[in-house]
């Protein structure tokens, strides 16, 4: 405040301002004054000239009226005697100059600066009119030079301007002095006190200006009031700042010794604070971390996440997330991070504070737990699947057990496989004759297998075990179409070393490859199928063995007992005839005795063959026991049957002496009984046929005898259905 010691900047500024205003106003007043003065001088000259012309008017009129040049000259000379007049002329109304005169031009006029603004001459014209009629007789023209007037005017103007400026400056200086005395000096004292400010002792005497009762006094008092308040506030601030420093030391110690990592980032992502725990977690020291950017400590894979959470805009709340840090040795560290923004009083984001907890170990345990859980779930699913598979397979097993024929079995098998191998289209082939495999059932995409293939085409058969081919790996079975994609599993089914069939499963290229569960399922399925089929075959064999005569291959008596009542009932219902025949080989005992049992067996076979050859396919011929055969011929009358059997007798005779047979005529005797003529039930028919057979035997053998039609009362139940054994037994008992 150097100005405070001198005259005062304020006073100088006031004086300068006043001077400027004064000069400006002086100039403005001068302009107005000069303008007025100029107009006055112009008016004065105009008045003077007009007055002069008015005086000269009458003589000039007379001179022009009379065209008197002499008089005109006198008038012109008179006009020229006026100082400003430079030139005067008198012209008649005929346009002729009557007189003309001029004064020498004033020297100052040429080239004076004011001629640029003011015309150097001024013309005055006076029309001259004569008489009461005001007849125009001429014109008087006076030209005045402006130079004398302008010189007079300019002298006055300069003097006026000078005086005005002088007056203005004087007033301005007076105002400056007044301002200094009344404003600047007391204000300077206050300023000096404000500058001294804090250096003054607290009990400094009050300023003398404070005793004034004007505005300056108010300022001084207000300042003293604020000075006292400021002192108190400064002392309180000092105390709270000390407390704050202590608190900061405390908190810093807490942060530095905390087990959790503490990390503070500024708004640009640089490290503003890092404690020992964090540094240790990252394999470095807090000092080395200071100031370095966030990106150096974060795993490259989590940069975006970290920047999103730690550098994003202001977030209102605490946020938790996990991310990977990159240790100084290059290893990744999983950490749980909770962040909160650090903002200043205006809400501007200063940075982010993050609490970092090492989460690597926990994540590892979590991962283990997750894997175990997944495995368990998968196992449970497998088990459930297995269970459902097993249920289906058990059902399949039951169904297979119930199947009567292989075709039924194949249908069941196909349906079950379509359920079990829903994702794996495939097929099942069984062994056919002559090395051929016959595909008996497919499911899913049926065109993956041909209808037949050679046994050698399948590598599973050749290897004697399951064969798998997955496009790139494994030998390709030639029964697969060459353009077929995906993989195929062929499982051969063997029972006691004999091939029953092959199970083919194919997997589309898009679906997952054959996994263990499918293989497992295949094995179980294969076992069940293999056992079921072998069972079926066994049953068929057993059934055949039970119903057929092992020697001749003809159905046995049980078969006859089953068939006869059924056929009989059917023909009776349909109103058709049915003929029953009993055939007995003549003198069979003699063949056995003479040629041995082998020859006897061959005789029986030969008879059986001839019978079969002479009967229709719908007829039944069975060995009834010993050397007796029973034939059922549905829909055939007794006479027709006789001719057939007679043909058979003829054929038999031709067989005599053929290979393996005794060299002796083989003959047989036939007894026929037709329903309903000879009875409507099996027993009655058999009995009638037996009677006819005996009659034929009695007639000499090698012939056919038909039982007479007679009303044989029904012996047993009207339906004719009775246990076969009972009928036969009854028959036997009646037999001699």
């Amino acid at each position: 405040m150097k100005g405070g010691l001198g005259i005062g900047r304020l006073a100088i500024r006031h004086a300068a301002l006043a001077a400027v205003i004064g000069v400006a106003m002086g100039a403005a007043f001068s302009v107005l004054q000069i303008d007025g003065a100029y107009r006055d001088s112009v008016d004065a000259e105009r008045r003077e000239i007009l007055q002069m012309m008015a005086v000269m008017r009458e003589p000039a009129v007379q001179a022009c009226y009379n065209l008197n040049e002499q008089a005109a000259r006198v008038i012109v000379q008179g006009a020229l005697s006026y100082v400003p007049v430079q030139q005067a002329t008198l012209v008649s109304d005929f346009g002729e100059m009557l007189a003309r005169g001029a004064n020498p031009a004033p020297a100052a006029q040429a080239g004076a600066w004011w001629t640029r603004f003011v015309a150097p001459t001024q013309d005055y014209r006076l029309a001259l009119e004569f008489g009461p009629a005001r007849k125009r007789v001429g014109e008087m023209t006076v030209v005045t030079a402006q130079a004398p007037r302008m010189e007079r005017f300019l002298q006055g103007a300069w003097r006026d301007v000078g005086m005005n400026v002088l007056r203005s400056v004087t007033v301005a200086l007076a105002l400056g002095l007044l301002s200094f005395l009344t404003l600047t000096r007391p204000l300077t004292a206050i300023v000096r006190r404000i500058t001294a400010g804090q250096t003054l002792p607290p009990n400094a005497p009050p300023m003398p200006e404070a005793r004034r009762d004007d505005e300056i006094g108010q300022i001084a008092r207000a300042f003293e009031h604020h000075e006292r308040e400021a002192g108190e506030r400064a002392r309180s601030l000092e105390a709270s700042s000390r407390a704050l420093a202590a608190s900061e030391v405390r908190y810093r110690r807490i942060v530095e010794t905390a087990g959790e990592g503490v990390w503070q980032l500024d708004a640009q992502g640089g490290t503003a604070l890092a404690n020992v725990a964090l540094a240790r977690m990252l394999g470095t020291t807090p000092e080395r971390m200071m100031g370095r950017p966030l990106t150096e400590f974060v795993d490259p894979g989590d940069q975006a996440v970290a920047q999103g959470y730690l550098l994003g805009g202001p977030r209102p709340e605490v946020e938790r997330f996990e991310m990977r840090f990159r240790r100084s040795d290059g290893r990744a560290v999983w950490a749980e991070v909770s962040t909160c923004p650090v903002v200043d009083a205006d809400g501007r984001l200063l940075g982010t504070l993050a609490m970092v907890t090492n989460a690597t170990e926990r994540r590892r345990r979590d991962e283990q737990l997750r894997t175990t859980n997944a495995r368990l779930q998968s196992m449970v699913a497998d088990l459930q699947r297995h269970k459902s598979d097993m249920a289906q397979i058990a059902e399949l097993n039951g169904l297979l057990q119930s199947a009567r024929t292989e075709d039924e079995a194949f249908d069941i098998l196909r349906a079950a496989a379509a359920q079990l191998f829903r994702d794996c289209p495939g097929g099942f082939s069984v062994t056919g004759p002559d090395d051929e495999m016959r595909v008996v059932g497919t499911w899913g995409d049926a065109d993956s297998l041909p209808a037949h293939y050679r046994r050698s085409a399948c590598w599973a058969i050749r290897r004697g075990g399951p064969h798998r081919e997955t496009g790139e790996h494994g030998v390709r079975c030639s029964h697969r179409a060459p353009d077929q994609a995906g993989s195929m599993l062929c499982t051969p089914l063997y029972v006691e070393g004999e091939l029953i069939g092959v199970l083919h499963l194919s997997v589309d290229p898009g679906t997952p490859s054959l996994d263990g569960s499918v293989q497992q399922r295949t094995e179980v399925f294969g076992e069940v199928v293999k056992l079921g089929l072998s069972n079926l075959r066994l049953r068929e064999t057993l059934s055949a063995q039970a119903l057929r005569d092992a020697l001749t291959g003809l159905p046995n008596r049980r078969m006859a007992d089953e068939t006869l009542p059924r056929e009989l009932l059917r023909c009776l219902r349909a109103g058709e005839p049915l003929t029953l025949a009993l055939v007995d080989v003549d003198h069979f005992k003699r063949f056995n005795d003479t040629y041995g049992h082998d020859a006897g067996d061959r005789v029986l076979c030969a008879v059986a063959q001839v019978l079969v050859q002479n009967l229709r396919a719908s007829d039944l011929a069975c060995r009834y026991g010993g050397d007796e055969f029973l034939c059922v011929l549905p829909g055939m009358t007794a006479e027709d049957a006789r001719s057939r059997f007679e043909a058979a007798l003829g054929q038999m005779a031709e067989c005599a002496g053929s290979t393996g047979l005794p060299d002796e005529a083989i003959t047989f005797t036939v007894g026929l009984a037709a329903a309903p003529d000879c009875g409507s039930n099996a027993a009655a028919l058999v009995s009638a046929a037996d009677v006819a057979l005996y009659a034929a035997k009695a007639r000499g053998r090698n012939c056919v005898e038909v039982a007479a039609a007679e009303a044989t009362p029904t012996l047993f139940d009207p339906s004719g259905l009775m246990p076969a054994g009972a009928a036969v037994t009854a028959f036997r008992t009646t037999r001699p």
Partner: protein
Amino acid sequence: MAWRSGRLGLLLLALLGAVTAVSGAGAAGAAAVAPECKRVVFSANPDYPPYHWAEGERIVGASVALTGRILDDLGVAWEARFVGPWPRVLKSAEHGQIDLIVSLKPTPEREAYLVFTRSPSFPNPMAVFTAKARPVKFGGLEDLVGKRGGRTAGDRLGDAFDRFAERALTLEDADTLGVNFQKLAAGRIDYVVTGLYTGRAQLLQLGLGDRIAPLPRPVNEGFIHHGFARRSPCVALLEAFDERLAAARKAGLDARLLEEALQQWRNRQAPAGQP
């Protein structure tokens, strides 16, 4: 080519028409120009009685009477207009504002803008006026030598007289004729040389007719003519005027008109009384 010959014929016809018009105009002479001069405005010295003087806005007198008769005879309308003092009358004619100045003396400088009639309109003899109480014997100019004469300033009295006066006579110039007559009546001069008729008119005006009279022998026989303004179309009337002026003169009309004008002048003076 039919249209071209047609146009040529038209052109020839037009040329013929033009030639005819020109030659007709030449043959018609003044008569053809006459329509351009329907009205003659003339003036004269407003203060030259009895030839002519101003009465209000009109000029009257002997000249006006004579000219009016001639113009009436020619069938042209006319006006005798007062246009101002004598220099103004001359300037008006010079600028063509009037067509004719009647009865003035031809001079070379006036010839520049006026065409004068060959025949004079009036005689304007110069006479010597003497007081009846002091008679002067006048047989020739030599008789005036030794006497004191008076003259109006600016008057020209004929070349011969002017030269003689320069050489031998004692003449006092006065501003007006009236002053000269007063001086003569008072005996301060012996004679006054001026126009015979104008002098008589002045004497009538002054009432000195019984005391002053002109001598019977004139100093010279001057004549005055009509001058047409060269700028006026009425200059075409010059020839006709010449003839009629000559006829009037032969008939003695001019002298008669002058006497009538003097009477008119006197009658006009009577009601006005003596100034």
